[in-house]
């Protein structure tokens, strides 16, 4: 009988060995982390900003010793939905104005506080041999052309040169740091990083 139940015993042994890292966090631990360990700044950012913001985050940590920037990268729609449901955050960087409005409607971002820091650049990509001989924007109207467009709900799908707004969260745990981070995104070095990853600066 013991032999039959061995996988069960194996599983419980495994569980005994495993301790979930950072399980349910009581807010008290988040409210007063300055006593020991770094102060955590939580930044919700659009997934397309991943590499640029990771780099900017590292420079921000260097410029502000004792601060640890934690990112939550996901689609802007998802981030706005999370903020609407009370997700704890300090800064929100969206890939479009619409989702920033969603966060503002949920009272997580003060109205008119969001500032545009970069814009998307729309590009037309043709196959290397360019058999359809596309050279101007008008050529896209040629009949028989297979044109792939971004989905309408995705920021790029909305034709306009969409802007990326950034704003501190109104009930941020680290309001001063949040404001500092937002300003940091606008300084020269951060601009260079953003430009390096293909964003156009307004």
């Amino acid at each position, binding site marked *: *009988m013991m*032999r*039959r*139940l*061995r*996988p*069960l015993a*194996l*599983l*419980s042994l*495994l*569980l005994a060995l*495993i301790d*979930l*890292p*950072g*399980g*349910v*966090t*009581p*807010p*008290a631990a988040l409210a007063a982390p300055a006593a020991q360990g770094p102060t955590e700044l939580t930044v919700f950012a659009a*997934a*397309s900003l*991943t*590499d640029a913001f990771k780099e900017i985050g590292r420079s921000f940590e260097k410029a502000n010793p004792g601060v640890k920037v*934690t*990112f*939550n*990268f*996901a689609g802007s729609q*998802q981030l706005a*939905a*999370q903020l*609407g*449901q*009370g*997700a*704890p955050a300090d800064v929100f960087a969206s890939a479009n104005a619409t989702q920033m409005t969603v966060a503002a409607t949920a009272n997580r971002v003060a109205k008119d506080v969001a500032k545009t820091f970069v814009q998307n650049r729309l590009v037309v990509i043709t196959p290397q041999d360019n058999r359809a001989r596309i050279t101007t924007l008008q050529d896209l109207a040629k009949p028989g052309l297979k044109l792939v467009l971004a989905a309408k709900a995705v920021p790029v799908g909305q034709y306009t040169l969409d802007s990326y707004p950034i704003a501190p969260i109104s009930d941020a745990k680290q309001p001063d740091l949040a404001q500092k981070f937002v300003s940091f995104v606008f300084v020269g070095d951060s601009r260079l990083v953003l430009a390096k990853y293909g964003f156009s600066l307004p």
Partner: protein
Amino acid sequence: MERTTTAQRAEIEGRRRPLPLTTLGLVLASLPMLAYLLIPLLAMIARVDIAAILAQFANPEVGQAIWLSITTTTWCTALALGLGTPLAFLLARRRFRGRSLLDTLVELPMVLPPSVAGIALLIAFGRRGLIGASLDAAGLQIAFTTVAVVMAQVFVAAPFYIKTAVAGFAGIERELEQAAAIDGASPLQVFRLITLPLAWPVLLGGLVMSWARALGEFGATIIFAGNFPGRTQTMPLAIYLGFELDLDLALTLALILLAVSFLVLWLVKAILRQRVHAP
């Protein structure tokens, strides 16, 4: 009884001696599905170079994501087993009004798009949620923690185990349980000594299936738990961010996930085989 089954088995095995021609036909008929399932995996392997995989193992974020995936899915599997088994037994063994309704309700999370499941969990357990609001008042926040990762996995993966377990419990010969009960075993003893051991191979199969589903879980996790490295960023979430960086990185991470899953599945099957061959 024992003699008949042995005799029957011998007869079937005799009849089942493989005829070369039918075997050939069977192999040919199996090939299209096998090829279809394996070609995309082979395409991935062909594209990724081994050195890149080894380099990614040294990346602390990848290590974190692998470890987080292993720990959370282990918890998910344990919870599916511990909390899903009574429900499966109830559905398999008791006849009551609304049983078939309950049975269908348990299946719903399987058809729900995972991102919808994530939103549902968030509006239930988030800080402004149905239950989450009172939990928050009590100083307990679940969303965006590792616990939320496990909860998202249990929500989408446990039904796979429960459905299999119902079939497993229903397939056991009731006479064996009744015989044990007549011999004086208490209901709990019957369950522990007769039902569970007999159903175990099926239950284990269901557990593996639900573990695999939990390991690939993405949609519900990224919404309910967020994408925090080291805290909620499991392998599928790391792969998603890999796509934002570059395709080859994402493929490399995906291959690592595949390799880990393959090892675990292989190991579980090896344990099962050993158990079957043991006297």
